């Protein structure tokens, strides 16, 4: 019961933050609300026992991306342009897709169900072999760094490439701050 209450409260907060962030026309408050959204997502991940994901979400989503948005915000006007389009069609589409997603979610396995397909594939192998193979207790690190070492190498190169891309776009020396 307590778990249900806590999760319900967090989801309720998420919904409120999402609505306020969409409605707000001040860009600064939208950015701060997006950070708060990430922080609450991180709390939900903790309550799902996904500590590593929660860690990443709190550090990247709530921390760094907010700072990057604020740095990028200097080049934007303070307020969004208000557009008064007909939003009934968009509302119907969003509502329809939302209903479909909720309907589809009834077919999902219960959270933590050991018989769910995702827990029957390679999961048991990792759980039973990480400790004998590597002698480390954190399965997530074992899977990321060793069993799936190629994937992590790929991710590292992707991050590196993203940094290079931004460096090529913004850092060509011409547009750089002169006092740097």
């Amino acid at each position, binding site marked *: 019961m307590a778990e249900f209450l806590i999760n319900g409260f967090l989801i309720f907060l998420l919904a409120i933050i999402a609505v306020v962030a969409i409605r707000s026309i001040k860009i600064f408050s939208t950015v701060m609300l997006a950070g708060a959204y990430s922080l609450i997502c991180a709390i939900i991940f903790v309550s799902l026992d996904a500590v590593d994901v929660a*860690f990443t979400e709190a550090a990247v989503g709530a921390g760094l991306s907010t*700072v990057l948005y604020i740095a990028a915000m200097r080049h934007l006007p303070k307020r969004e342009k208000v557009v008064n389009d007909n939003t009934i069609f968009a509302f119907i589409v969003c509502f329809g897709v939302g209903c479909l997603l909720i309907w589809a979610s009834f077919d999902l396995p219960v959270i933590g169900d050991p018989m769910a397909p995702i827990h029957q594939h390679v999961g048991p192998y990792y759980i039973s072999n990480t400790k004998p193979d590597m002698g480390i207790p954190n399965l997530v690190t074992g899977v990321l760094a*060793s069993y799936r070492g*190629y994937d992590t190498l790929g991710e590292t190169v992707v991050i590196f490439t993203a*940094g290079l891309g931004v460096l090529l776009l913004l850092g060509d020396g011409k547009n750089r701050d002169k006092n740097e």
Partner: protein
Amino acid sequence: MNDDPILRVCTKIIVGPIILFGLYVQFHGDYGPGGGFQAGVIVAAGFILHSLIFGLKEGRKLISERLNLFIMILGVILYGGVGLVSIYYDAEYLNYSILAHDTKHGQHIGILLIEFGVGLTVAGVMLILFHLFSSWQGEDK
């Protein structure tokens, strides 16, 4: 750049522990939550906080752009290099078991090294992203 004395003093106190915590997450990732990616972000956040309060120029005095690029590249090379060392010792690419006499020790060393590579790259990229976004002057200026 911020002249508020409270922010400046608090930043001076807090930047060190943030970076120390990043290092803890980096090298403790195989025993607790965390790892290279999170550690890189936390260390970068420490330096970014310093730059936010004391200005980009002061931040670049700590880590110059050359050093920043070097850190970025070194991370990827360290990761890929561990794989090449495995090949050198007649094992599959990124098979760490060969790195020490004992398989477990080899795996442990390999994981520590590649996580450090991930951390270096992530910290370097995050820091350079922040500096590029903040120092960009716009197209028409």
